[in-house]
Structure formats: C-alpha cells, structure tokens
C-alpha cells in the first residue's frame, strides 16, 4: 500500500477527532517541550559558568571557609571562617611555594541605586586594588581602583558593564555616583563587556567595603590567591594547605576547615553538575515520554474499537494484515511526531522567552531537536504496535457485524 495514501488516511483520522488528538499529544508535547527547555537551560548555565571561569582568570586560586565534606555540619557559632591573617600567612609563603600574592575578599550582598533604578549585584567584590591588575578585566571608561583609594578608604567603585547599563544606561556611569546599601559611592570606571556572569560584577576597595558595607568585624568571604604561573597550581595548593593548617592550628589527621579551588576544580564541579543535570534530564524525558506514550496507546486502543466496522470493511475488500498494521502504526507515529513538533516549538519558544528575560545566551541547537523528533517517532512505533496488531487480528466477519 502506498505510503502517501496511508499518511493521508492517518491525517484524516487525527483531524476528525481534533480535540482528542490534541489532548493525546499533550503528554508528548510536555515531555519533549520540557526536555528542550531544560537542555537549553543547562547549556545556558554551563556557558555562563564557563564565562565566569574566564572572568576568574586562570592563575587565581580561591580559598573558601569550610572543608570539602559538606555533610560534616559545624556546630552553630563555631562555623569555620577565614581571616586577614590567613591571607597574610599565605602571602608570606612567597614565590618559592608558588604564591605571588593573596587578597582577602569581602563579598556582601549589595543593592545599587541611582534614583529609581536599582539592581542587586550578583558578584560584589571588595578587594585590594592590586588584585584587579591580575584579574582579566578591561576598562571601557574611567579608571580602575588605585592603591591610593585603598589607603585613603575612598568610597569609589568600578562597575561591570551590565550593572552600569542597568542603573545608568548604555555607555554611561563613569564619573557619576551610586548609592550602595544607603551609602554614596563614586563610580570611577566601567568595565568592558566580556559576556556571562563577569558583567554583573562591581569592585570597591577592601577598606571602603569594610567601613561602609560589610561591617568592621566581618571575616573575608574568600581569599583570592595569585599564583606565580599557571603550572604552579599544585605546588601553590600544597603551600596554602600547609600555611592555613598552621594558622588554624589543626592537628595532623584533622580535616581541613577550608577548601581551595583552582580553575580546574571549578571546571570539574561544573562538569559534575552538568552530568547530574543530564541524568535528571534523561529521567524526566524518559518518564514523560513513557507517560505520553501510554496516553497515545490508550487512545489508539479506543480508536481501534471505534473503527472496528471500518477495519471490517477494509478487510472485506482485501486489506492484508500488514496493511492494517501499518495504517494504525503510521497514525500513532504521526500523532507522536506532531506532539514532538509541538514540544519543540513550545520548549524552544519558552527557552527563548526565558533567555530574553534573564539575559542568558540561549541556543537550542539542531541535535536536541533532531533527537526529540526521532524519539517521538520511536515512541509512536512502540506504543502503537499493540493497538495496531489488535486491529489487524480482528476477524473480518465479526468486525463487519460490529455496531
């Protein structure tokens, strides 16, 4: 039997029960749509993480308070913390231990305001101006922070491009002033856009942040350590470990109450997050497509019963078993393919909308779409097989008599 005429028959039957067909497809639409959306979100996140890694620079190690063992919850009031003395101890190791410099960082939550426009900076960094020389930042306008700003405790700030654009407008901000958590700061410079999270930063001198934003007794949120060269990260990690275990007075065998991340460590974390994400995605996809497929099978069984008489007629005028099977199989495949297409449109559209509002660069890519369509077709084949065989197995004489 010709494929085209079978396809036409399938389409006609789907179109005849439009509401029911749409409801049946919904399971597949939601399954495919959510997978497309989540894959796009996962991609956007991982490219944002990559952007962030680039922003962090490749010869910077970061020390955070707290060990690697997330499950060993510290006693309340006794949470591990870092101190400025820790930073000094690390810096004291010197180039022999692979260390070039160590900068304590204060990262309070800060909301910037200019008149009615305000934004919460996702990455506010209070740090010694010297650090900015090592970080990969480029000025678009104004100047970077200076050593004088630090020693004079000046309330000055350098804004990331997106932050500046958000509260001042495109290309503006340098030379103006901004209110940070109620304290007025001068904006001395705006950074050039680099893409990703690195554009949502703001930098201020460590001293000014301590005076005005974090409070005088706040411990450093992290310590950024500049290493002598990229290859020295292993040596530098060991040096940091030794130095901090000494200042924290840890006994041999006691677990460290700090952790050191290099760029490769962050890459590893990002990779493990994305692999967990893809396992979860796979589960979501498999579950929803299975449920959607059951819906399709259910409706196909109903369709077969409803069209018993038609099947009888077809058999009487000479339809062979395989011809009946392929008619109903194609119908369920078309149903699933339409659902898959709908899912691609809805999921892709949703991803673009989310991307538009969050500012993440969203790309969907041909591969997930092709896979989604292919999987829909397979679901149609798999779940259409049983109903189609039921149709083909009917005795023509009984089917003809069916009312």
């Amino acid at each position, binding site marked *: *039997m*010709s494929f*085209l*005429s079978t396809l036409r*028959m399938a389409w*006609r039957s789907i179109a*005849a029960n439009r509401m029911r067909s749409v409801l049946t497809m919904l399971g597949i639409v939601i399954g495919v749509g959510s997978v497309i959306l989540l894959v796009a979100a996962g991609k956007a996140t991982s490219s944002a993480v990559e952007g962030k890694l680039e922003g962090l620079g490749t010869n910077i190690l970061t020390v955070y308070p707290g060990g690697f063992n997330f499950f060993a919850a510290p006693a309340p009031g006794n949470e591990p913390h870092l101190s400025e003395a820790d930073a000094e101890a690390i810096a004291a190791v010197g180039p022999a231990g692979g260390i070039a410099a160590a900068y304590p960082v204060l990262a309070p939550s800060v909301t910037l305001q200019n008149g009615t426009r305000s934004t919460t900076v996702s990455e506010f960094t209070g740090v010694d101006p010297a650090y900015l020389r090592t970080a990969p930042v480029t000025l678009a306008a104004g100047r970077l922070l200076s050593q004088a700003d630090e020693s004079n405790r000046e309330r000055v700030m350098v804004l990331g491009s997106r932050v500046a654009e958000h509260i001042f407008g495109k290309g503006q901000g340098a030379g103006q002033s901004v209110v940070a958590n109620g304290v007025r700061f001068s904006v001395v410079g705006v950074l050039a856009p680099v893409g990703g999270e690195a554009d949502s930063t703001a930098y201020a001198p460590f001293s000014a942040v301590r005076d005005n934003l974090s409070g005088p007794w706040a411990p450093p949120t992290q310590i950024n350590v500049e290493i002598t060269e990229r290859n020295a990260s292993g040596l530098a990690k060991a040096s940091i470990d030794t130095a901090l275990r000494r200042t924290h007075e840890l006994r041999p065998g006691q677990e460290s109450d700090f952790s050191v991340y290099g760029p490769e460590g962050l890459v590893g974390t990002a990779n493990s997050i994305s692999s967990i994400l893809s396992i979860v995605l796979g589960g979501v996809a498999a579950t929803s497509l299975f449920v959607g497929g059951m819906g399709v099978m259910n409706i196909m069984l109903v369709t077969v019963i409803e069209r018993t*008489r*038609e099947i009888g*007629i*077809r*058999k*009487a*005028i*000479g*339809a*062979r*078993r*395989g*011809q009946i099977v392929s008619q109903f199989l194609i119908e369920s495949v078309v149903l699933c393919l339409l659902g898959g297409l709908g899912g691609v449109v809805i999921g892709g559209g949703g991803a673009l909308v989310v991307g538009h509002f969050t500012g993440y660069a969203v790309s969907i890519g041909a591969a997930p779409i092709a896979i989604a369509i292919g999987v829909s077709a397979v679901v149609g084949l798999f779940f259409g097989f049983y109903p189609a065989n039921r149709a083909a197995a009917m005795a*023509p*004489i009984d089917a*003809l008599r069916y009312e």
Partner: protein
Amino acid sequence: MTAALEPVPALIEIEHARRSYSLGDEVVHALRDVSLTIESGEHVAIMGPSGSGKSTLMNVIGCLDQVSEGRYLLDGIDVLDRGADELAEIRNRKIGFIFQQFNLIARTSALENVELPLVYAEVGRRERRRRAKEALATVGLAERTGHQPSELSGGQQQRVAIARAIVTDPALLLADEPTGALDLATTETVMELLAELHAQGRTIVVITHEEEVADHAARVVRVRDGLIDSDEVTAVEVAA
C-alpha cells in the same frame, strides 16, 4: 478448440458444506449440508428467512467465513485452509462486495472509496485514479467523485459502493441485501444497475429476503434450516 472439450470449472463450487459454531453451550448448525454450483455469468438470488443460514452461506461464498466440513472452490481455487492474508488477497481479486449498509469509509471522498481496493492491490496511483473514475462513470456518478459519503443520498452511496465492488473487475459481485436500506424508487434504480452489470457479463449473487429483488435474478436458491430448499431457474438466459 481443445478447450471446449475440457470441462470449464464453475465459478462457485460448494460441495457438502457444513458450518457449525458454538454459542455458549449450544452448537448451532448454520449450514447442514449445502452443495451449490454457480456458473460464470449467472445472476442468482439466494433467499431465505432470517436464521435460515443464508448469511452464513454468503459469508462462506465471500471468503469471510470458512466451512467446517466440505469443499469450496472459487474460480477453481480451493479456498479451504488458507491463511488470513491469502483470503484477503482472494477477496480483493475475485469478489466485489455490496453491503446493505453501503459500508463506505466515512470522511473519505467517493473517488478514494472506490480506489481503496486498488490501494490494497498495490495498483499505481495514476492507474488507480483512472479505473476508479471509470467505475464511478459506470454507475452514473462521474460528477460526484469528490463528495464524501455524508454528502450523498442513500442511493448514491450504494452506487459508490457498487463502483467500489466493480473497480477490481472481480469474477463475482456479491450483494448482501443491497436494497435493504433503500426506498422503493432507489431500490429500482440500484436493481436496474445490477441488471445492467449482469448484462455486461458479470456474475452476480444477491442475498435477499425481498421477492421484488429476487425477481430480477434468473435463478433463485431458497435456503431453510441450513439446507437448500429449492433451486429454480426463473428466467431463460440468452447465452453470452
């Protein structure tokens, strides 16, 4: 000339056919012992009250059902113990069905309905179209090829069904109460159409309980209690 010496096989040769099936605890003998021979080119009416076994006989003749015992040759082919697909192919090639309820496929144009047997016979698209149009012209519906069954009157639907039955040029036209769902006037046109097809040399077997319909046939076979009650030639045929 040697061919004339050999016996030409009859179109339908049923010998001592029995058909019984169980209905719960009861065994129903629908056909007890039926022998029937129908030659090519005949116009035969099979009559009988309901429950007489005439429907079972029609199903057997139409290869929709199989006899439990006996023999059935259709156009020289022994149809006993054939698989479902083989029977489908035999029905497709040898038999054109005309049903009481027309049994057209809904939401499908007259032309496509008529094409359907050719679709299953895997005839090419262009050839299919040509033959379906020809068949529709034969039944006088050349102008209605694009109409769907719901847009046609009962008589027109039955004519589409007749076109579908003749489109494969089958050896046998098998009509099951073809006018049962039609009013008197349309009954007459449909019966005239069948008579016309018979005049063109087609073999027609009509199952009916209406005497007026049987009157059109040249031979009437009456069935009662699973047996053939009478078999009489009612009109002398002019040999084709």
